[in-house]
């Protein structure tokens, strides 16, 4: 298990590096891609958290969508600012996950995977058919992130891509720190034990149902937070964005980077998956084929993800905890 101090140092270094990026990258287009990397890395982080507890959820995009729709509606109908709507939508998404998870988490494994697929499809249908959610066209003209005014000093506007980049960086780190606190505390050890051998964990006194439910709620709330950012960043959302295929991509981001690296793995995975296709744009038609081939090679030769290359050299390196 990584010691909490290593985690803190790692996170600090990572923050510094990521905060420097806008000094180098000037193109708004590339900034936009990096913002997408940040948001998708957040989603991939939620996948890894649930995976730790032995839950493979194909409903991540649905909860991402719930966060996006809730946040948009809170802003449009109740006139809440982003800074109110964002935490509220994460909490509401977590509450929805609690209600659904109570039932789903009882039988993890294959059944759970299928149930979350169904859940994901039901969510998309609900977004598309309930009048509240604006039908297939979705919701448009969602207010952008409200500026922060600090009286007599300055105010921060979230108009430029750079400002949005720092916002997603902030949110990413918020979730990363929150999740790391869980990992370092007893909870992380219990999740790991459940993921490795649920029956043995249970026989050592771990209430596997409660811990799995906690992972499902905390993971889904993180996805909801990412959804809130997405809604206000894009200004418009449509139901099909949040389908199961999106979740499969989220899984790929995490697996590519390495699920043993709960913070860095998602960044690397999302970075490569989002930027490689851009680099390969010369051959737009064959780009999915190349990306697909890369993935197959990776799963065959590096099942622990790209980052496992780094720890391989160290003797007895354990990319867990």
């Amino acid at each position: 298990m990584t010691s909490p101090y290593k985690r803190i140092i790692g996170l600090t270094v990572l923050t510094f590096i990521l905060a420097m990026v806008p000094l180098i990258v000037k193109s708004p287009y590339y900034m936009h891609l990096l913002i997408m990397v940040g948001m998708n890395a957040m989603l991939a982080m939620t996948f890894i958290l649930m995976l730790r507890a032995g839950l493979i959820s194909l409903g991540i995009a649905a909860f991402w969508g719930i966060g996006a729709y809730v946040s948009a509606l809170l802003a449009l109908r109740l006139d809440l600012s982003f800074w109110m709507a964002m935490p509220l939508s994460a909490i509401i998404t977590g509450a929805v996950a609690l209600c659904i998870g109570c039932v789903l988490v009882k039988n993890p494994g294959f059944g759970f995977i299928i149930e979350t697929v169904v859940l994901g499809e039901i969510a998309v249908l609900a977004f598309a058919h309930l009048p509240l959610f604006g039908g297939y066209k979705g919701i448009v003209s969602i207010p952008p992130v409200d500026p922060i005014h600090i009286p007599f000093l300055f105010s921060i506007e979230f108009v430029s891509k750079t400002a949005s980049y720092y916002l997603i960086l902030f949110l990413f780190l918020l979730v990363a720190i929150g999740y790391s606190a869980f990992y370092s505390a007893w909870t992380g050890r219990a999740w790991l034990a459940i993921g490795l051998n649920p029956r043995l964990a249970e026989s050592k006194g771990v209430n596997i149902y409660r811990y799995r439910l906690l992972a499902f709620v905390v993971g889904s709330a993180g996805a909801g937070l990412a959804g809130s950012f997405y809604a206000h960043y894009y200004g418009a959302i449509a139901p099909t964005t949040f389908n199961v295929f999106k979740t499969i991509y989220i899984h790929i981001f995490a697996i590519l980077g390495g699920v043993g690296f709960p913070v860095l793995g998602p960044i690397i995975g999302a970075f490569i998956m989002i930027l490689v296709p851009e680099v390969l744009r010369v051959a737009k038609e064959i780009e999915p084929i190349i990306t697909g081939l890369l993935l197959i090679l990776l799963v065959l030769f590096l099942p622990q993800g790209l980052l496992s290359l780094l720890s391989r050299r160290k003797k007895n390196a354990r990319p867990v905890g």
Partner: protein
Amino acid sequence: MLKVNKLTKHFGGLVAVNEVDLHIDSSEIVGLIGPNGAGKSTLFNLINGFLKPTSGEVFFEGMDITGFKAHDVSHLGIDQSFQASTLFQRLSVLDNVFIGYHMRYKTKYWKRLLRTPSALKEERAFRKDALEILTFMGLQKLRDEQAENLSHGHQKILGVCMALATKPKLLLLDEPVAGMSPTETETMIELIRKIQEKGLTIVVVEHDMKVIMSLCDRIVVLNYGRKLMEGSPNEVLKSDEVIEAYLGKAEI
């Protein structure tokens, strides 16, 4: 301490455990023997909450624990080591033992999340205690080794360490020396004795009659899910029924 009344478990048409009565007194070591498939492991799983009995009752310290969940049974003070060495393969030896402290945290949840001094202090105390268990069982040198890299004998010992971490009153050992060399077996017998001296009550399933004979005060024989007989090691050894059902096939 433990009382089992007419415990029965059906798997489809198969009756794995059939109306078994059993009582275990405090500080005893009881041997549970019987041919393969006699229902010994199933009986353990009915007691520790992994399986729900078809009928019958289990009492632990006077409390009806029939059908309790495994983690609740663990909280009450029953733990086991498994027939197959069941470990968290990718965790270190120390972390494997550490899992057993799960239910003894006293500090509030948020304090543990924020790693306040009191939470850290408690964690250090548990770590120290886990190390003491490893030292007691002779595994302290391997504490940072990954569990899957341990020899078979050490893995079995680690399984017992993990059980001890939950501070059980009743310890169920399912074939603790299976697959061990004679010297490893000697070590394990010594360890089980030492554990009993600490005041634990032990039920041990074993095919190796040497182990049973040298450890147990009392032996219960199962055959085809039924209790065939029960008595002191000598009584059991002399019984024709038992020799026919079991000892005839096993190497003594």
